[in-house]
C-alpha cells in the first residue's frame, strides 16, 4: 500500500511551476514514476501532492533541429533507444538507454526522470555526459540552459530551484568522426542497477594529433563523473603501453567509490574501470 497523497496533473509548465512553488516540499514532480512510486512505497518520500507533468506539451519526443538533437524530458528510455537519430548520431546513448531496467520499466522510465533522480550511476546520464549534453530548465519565469555536467550536486541532489522543471536535453551532432562505447557491469545478468557503468568517446580516432577523448563513469563518486584530467592527458596521444600505465594511474586517482556499496567493493569497481579503459588501447 502507498501512503495517501493527492494527485494533480497540469498541461503547462507555467501552471505546474506556480503550483510547485506554492507548495514547496509538499509537492513532488511525477514523470514515469519508476523512482517516485518505489520511494513512496519505501516511505523515503512522503509527498502531499504528486504533480503529474505528463500532460505538458513540448516535453515529449525527439526532434532534429539542424545540427542539434532535442530530446524532451518525458521521452521514455525505449523511445530513446529506438529513435533513428539517436541510433545514428549517439549510439552510446542508445546502448545506455537500452540497459536501463527491463522492457516494461523502459516503457515508463523517462530520460528526464533518470537525470533528475540524481543517481550517480544513471544509465542515460553516463552516455549523455560524453556527448557534452546541455539541459534546458524551465519555470513560470522563463528558461535557463546548463551543461549537464554542472547539474549534479550529490546523490539524489540536482540543480533545480523551486518550481523548476527539466524541459529538454540538447545534443550537438558531431561534425567530426567519433567512436565510442558504453560499458556496464551488474551483479546478475537479469535486471539490476549498474555496479559500475562507463562511457568513452573518441573524436577523430584516426588522427593522433587531433584526437580528443571524453570519459564518464558511474557509481564511483557521489555524482556521475567526467574524468577531465584523464581526458586531457589522453587527447592527442598515441595509445601505447606507457601511456596506458600512466592513464591507469590518473584514472585510479580520480575514482572515489564509497565503502559499503551493496553492489561492488571499491577494489572491484577500480579493476573494472581500468579494464574498460583498456578498450581505448585495444580498439582505437
Amino acid at each position, binding site marked *: 500500500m*502507498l*501512503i*495517501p*497523497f*493527492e*494527485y494533480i*496533473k497540469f498541461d503547462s509548465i507555467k501552471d505546474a511551476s506556480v503550483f510547485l512553488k506554492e507548495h514547496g516540499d509538499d509537492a513532488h514532480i*511525477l514523470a514515469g*514514476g*519508476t523512482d517516485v*512510486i*518505489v520511494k*513512496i*512505497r*519505501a516511505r523515503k518520500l512522503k509527498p502531499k501532492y*504528486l504533480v*503529474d507533468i*505528463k500532460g505538458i506539451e513540448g516535453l515529449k519526443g525527439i526532434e532534429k533541429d539542424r545540427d542539434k538533437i532535442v530530446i524532451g524530458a518525458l521521452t521514455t528510455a525505449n523511445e530513446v533507444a529506438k529513435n533513428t537519430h539517436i541510433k545514428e548520431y549517439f549510439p552510446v546513448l542508445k546502448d545506455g538507454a537500452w540497459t536501463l*531496467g*527491463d*522492457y*516494461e*520499466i523502459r*516503457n*515508463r522510465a523517462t530520460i528526464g526522470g533518470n537525470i533528475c533522480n540524481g543517481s550517480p550511476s544513471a544509465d542515460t546520464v553516463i552516455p549523455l555526459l560524453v556527448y557534452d549534453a546541455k539541459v534546458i530548465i524551465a519555470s513560470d519565469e522563463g528558461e535557463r540552459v546548463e551543461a549537464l555536467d554542472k547539474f549534479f550536486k550529490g546523490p539524489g541532489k540536482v540543480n533545480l530551484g523551486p518550481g523548476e522543471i527539466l524541459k529538454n536535453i540538447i545534443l550537438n551532432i558531431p561534425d567530426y568522426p567519433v567512436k565510442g562505447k558504453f560499458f556496464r557491469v551488474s551483479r546478475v545478468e*537479469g*535486471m539490476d542497477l549498474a555496479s559500475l557503468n562507463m562511457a568513452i568517446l573518441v573524436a577523430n580516432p584516426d588522427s593522433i594529433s587531433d584526437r580528443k577523448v571524453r570519459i564518464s563513469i558511474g557509481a564511483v563518486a557521489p555524482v556521475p563523473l567526467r574524468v577531465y584530467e584523464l581526458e586531457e592527458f589522453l587527447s592527442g596521444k598515441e595509445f601505447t603501453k606507457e601511456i596506458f600505465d600512466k592513464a591507469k594511474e590518473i584514472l585510479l586517482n580520480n575514482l572515489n567509490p564509497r565503502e559499503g556499496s551493496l553492489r561492488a567493493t571499491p577494489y572491484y569497481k577500480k579493476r573494472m574501470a581500468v579494464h574498460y579503459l583498456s578498450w581505448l588501447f585495444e580498439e582505437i
Partner: protein
Amino acid sequence: MKKIIKLRVNGEDYEILVEPYWTLLKVLRDVLGFTGPKEGCGIGECGACTVYIDDKPVKSCLVLGVEVNGANITTIEGLSQNKKISGIQKAFIDEGAVQCGFCTPGMVMAINALYTNVSDPGEDDIKEALKGHLCRCTGYETIVKAAKRAKEYYKR
C-alpha cells in the same frame, strides 16, 4: 480525494472512483476484479503485475490508477478470445512452463509483447524480454522453451 477515471479494460469501458494513491494493479484487482495480474514485489522487480497500457507492457505496480484515465488496458484475461486461450498460453501448457503459476500471467504478457514487436525472436530476445520477470519454481528453462514454441502457433 477520490477521482473519477474512465478506462477501457480488455475491450470494455469503465468509469470508476479511485483514490489517487491506488496503483493500477490495485484498481484492476480490487476494484474491477481482474485478478490475473499479481502483486509479487510491488516495486517493479518481479514482473508478475505486467499489463499493457495502450499496447505497451508496463509494471502495473508502478503506475497509479489516476494516471491511466482515458487509456486502454489489457490484462492476461484479455489475451484469450471467445474463451479460447492464446497460442502463447497453449505453449506454456505444452512445455509444462507453469508450476505454482504466480509468475505466469506476467511471463505470458511479456512474451506476447515480444511477438508483436519481433516476428522471429531468438533466444537472446526471449531472455531480454524476461529480464525483469522472476520465477521461483521452474528454473526458467521451460519458460524459454515455451516462448520458442509459441512461434509455431504464431505462424498459423
